């Protein structure tokens, strides 16, 4: 075996390896033998770090000397819903410093839920001569000044995507920092910004970048400006409008219609803030070509929504508010047979009474009518076991099923029973399900089903569910492929966690907040499992100042080869063998 491996010159093996891009395959190759490990590590160019605290920059750089693209993820998913306190961590600056000195040829940085400062952005702008791509997804900590550095210095930048980041918007002047000689823009997403930018600067930028494919504007760009931009970029494939409103003038609609109809490559539409329905017909001409439509910020009533989706036979992805109602989803089921992904967001999530006529029926229709539907996110106010069973039978192809019944612990509205059987049907029929979020009234039985059938589940989100540790035990012992588990407000305590402690090392992370895990159990886990970081988050002060049996507020456990981190705020503690000795 060894003879065979060494008989191929390195260059040949490298060439063969270049056909394998997935991390899983690359990891497998590198375990064949020492020489393959060596060759592979020198030619791996793309790195994905699912948890920035699972590995250190130093360890990464030591193994992979020539990286061109890196993805880093920081805060746990529940940070999106304000469950992770401000200051928890996820700072990218130390990474940028290390990457700047190790990888001068780095081209791509993708960050998710990380704290990015202007300083970090400046360092990126100055350090990587061939920098091409910056994606900041749900990040925070930077301002438009940092963006100005990127615009001014990255001569070869192709993609700048601020996807849903929280940016301190000081002014729109940053956009004017792109030099006149800069022409390489391919994708720009500034939808999350607030301040007005110079429209003429924007028009000039768009006009001089012939490769521009994706442009997502922000709310401050009114509709009458959109036509000018579109005239300069008829090659666009993805468009995010700004505010979809303007003063009612006769020419706005006609200008917009003709500008849009000239964009023959357009496949994706988003934006649509402040919609004035009179202007909706402007998009009709491009509807037949659309594969993706994001109307989740658009306040449009169901009749207009129906008119719109009925003209989109090639739609694969729809994000929409619950204004679409059951009747709109019925229309969707009839018109959009190629639908793969549906997300229905709540228009008024904080009122008890339904403000729209959207029920389980809409989801049933879509599951019946759209044979390729794989991914669902659905907010509603009522559900039944019967409906869930029907949905599961209609659509066994679900890979992602996220149901949010708005009031916690809502039972089956027909029988007042828990929804155990319904979710059981989902996991039983959908054998390829990799992501599941449950809601409504659920007992430990639901988790028994999930543990029994959810063999391919990788990510599971639980809230206000279960009766006892048995529920958590079912999940931890049954779901063989579980990588991320996030739990809030469930009566799960020490027993299940301690009994399945070894399982935690096979997962990326576990989040538990407002549950019943005691400080004592956390300490135990931290002491016994050195390859886990067991972080206790408690804003009431160090848990040692209270009895050990009392539950901690929040708990975040993740595997790591980097050991405990040192950038924690004063309400986060890592449990390890020293935690008993460490001072508060």
């Amino acid at each position, binding site marked *: 075996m060894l003879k065979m491996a060494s008989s191929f010159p390195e260059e040949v093996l490298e060439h063969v390896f270049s056909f394998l891009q997935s991390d899983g395959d690359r990891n497998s190759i590198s375990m064949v033998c020492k020489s393959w490990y060596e060759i592979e590590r020198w030619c791996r160019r793309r790195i994905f770090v699912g948890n920035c605290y699972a590995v250190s920059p130093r360890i990464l750089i030591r193994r992979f000397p020539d990286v061109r693209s890196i993805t880093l993820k920081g805060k746990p998913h529940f940070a*999106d*819903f*304000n*469950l992770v306190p401000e200051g928890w961590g996820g700072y990218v600056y130390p990474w940028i410093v290390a990457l700047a000195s190790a990888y001068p040829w780095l081209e791509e940085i993708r960050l998710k839920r990380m704290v990015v400062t202007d300083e970090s952005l400046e360092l990126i702008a100055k350090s990587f001569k061939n920098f091409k791509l910056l994606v900041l997804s749900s990040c925070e900590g930077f301002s438009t000044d940092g963006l100005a550095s990127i615009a001014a210095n990255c001569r070869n930048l192709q993609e700048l995507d601020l996807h*849903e980041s*929280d940016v301190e918007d000081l002014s729109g002047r940053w956009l004017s920092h792109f030099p006149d000689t800069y022409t390489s823009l391919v994708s720009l997403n500034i939808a999350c910004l607030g301040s007005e930018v110079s429209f003429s600067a924007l028009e000039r930028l768009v006009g001089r970048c012939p490769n521009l494919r994706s442009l997502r504007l922000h*709310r401050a760009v009114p509709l009458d400006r959109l036509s000018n931009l579109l005239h300069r970029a008829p090659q666009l494939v993805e468009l995010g409008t700004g505010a979809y409103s303007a003063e009612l003038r006769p020419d706005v609609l006609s200008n917009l219609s003709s500008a849009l109809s000239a964009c023959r490559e357009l496949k994706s539409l988003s934006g649509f*803030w402040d919609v004035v329905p009179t202007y909706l017909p402007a998009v009709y001409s491009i509807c037949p070509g659309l594969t993706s439509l994001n109307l*989740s*910020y658009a*306040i449009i009533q169901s009749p207009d929504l129906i008119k719109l989706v009925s003209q989109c036979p090639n739609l694969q992805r729809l994000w929409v508010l619950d204004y679409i109602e059951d009747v709109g989803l019925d229309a969707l089921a009839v018109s959009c047979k190629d639908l793969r992904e549906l997300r229905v*967001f*709540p*228009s008024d*999530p*904080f009122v*008890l009474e339904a403000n729209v006529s959207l029920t389980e029926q809409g989801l049933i229709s879509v599951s019946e009518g759209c044979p390729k539907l794989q991914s669902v996110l659905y*907010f509603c106010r009522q559900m039944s076991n019967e409906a869930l069973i029907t949905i599961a039978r209609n659509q066994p192809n679900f890979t992602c099923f996220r149901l*949010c019944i*708005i*009031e*916690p*612990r*809502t*039972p089956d509205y027909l029988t*007042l*029973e*828990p929804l155990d059987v319904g979710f059981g049907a989902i996991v039983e029929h959908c054998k390829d399900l990799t992501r599941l979020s449950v809601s409504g*009234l659920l*007992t*430990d*039985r639901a988790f*028994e089903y999930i543990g029994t059938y959810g063999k391919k589940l990788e990510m599971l989100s639980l809230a*206000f569910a279960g*009766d*006892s*540790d*048995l529920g958590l*035990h079912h999940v931890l012992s049954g779901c063989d492929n579980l990588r991320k588990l996030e739990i*809030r*407000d469930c*009566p799960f*305590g*020490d*027993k*299940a966690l*301690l*009994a399945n*402690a070894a399982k935690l090392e096979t997962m990326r992370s576990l989040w538990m907040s*407002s*549950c*019943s895990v*005691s400080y*004592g*159990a956390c300490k*135990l886990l931290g002491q*016994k499992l050195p390859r886990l970081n067991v972080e206790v988050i408690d804003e009431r002060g160090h848990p040692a100042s209270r009895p050990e*049996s*009392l*539950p901690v507020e929040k708990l975040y456990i993740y595997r790591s080869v980097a050991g405990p981190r040192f950038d924690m705020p004063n309400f986060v503690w890592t449990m390890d063998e020293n935690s008993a000795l460490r001072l508060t």
Partner: protein
Amino acid sequence: MYRQPAQTSKLLPSKRVVTHRPHVPSPHWLFPGVQVSGELKSSMKRGFVETVDLDNHELGGQVEVGDGQWEAASTSTTAAAVKAPTAKSQVVGWPPVRSTRKKALDLKKSSSKYVKVGADGAPYLRKVDLEMYKSYEELLTALEQMFTSFTISGKYMEQNKKQRQALLVNGILVDECNHYVVTYEDKDGDWLLVGDVPWKMFKESCKRIRLMKSSEAALHPDHI
């Protein structure tokens, strides 16, 4: 497998009518920190977990936990009976809607109501959006911050919180040397003391606000 302690099933019957009262309009998830977990009367033996009959299932055998070095962690409870409806604060992060989304929709829906605010001794008027506040206390705290000479020192705030609350409620701001009376002009053109009517009613009828030095307030013709 686990033994499901008897207490648990008693406290949490499968019908769960206890926690869900369909006829009560105020949503119980508006209660902060509600946990309806049972009292897990622990007794996990060292290194072992007892077997359990799971309803109809028979799961035999005992499962050894770890290497026997696990201490019996005394499982705690998370207290909390269901609190009476407060209908005030919402549960953090529920429903799971991202704040960017919430903000974007809120901006569209809520109106703003800007009113001018003047203060004796301040050369410029200010403006506040009454829709930003949910109570008199919030408004007066904001006014306090706006007119910085009225800022109450930290020491004062700590020691005299109650007194300060009382003052705020009665529409009086205090600084080191003056008492200011917070007054407003209503739809009818009359000047009234802030704090008498319910917040919502105030919001609707208020046209402008004035902070008057109390010494002068007494002398103001409209106040006689």
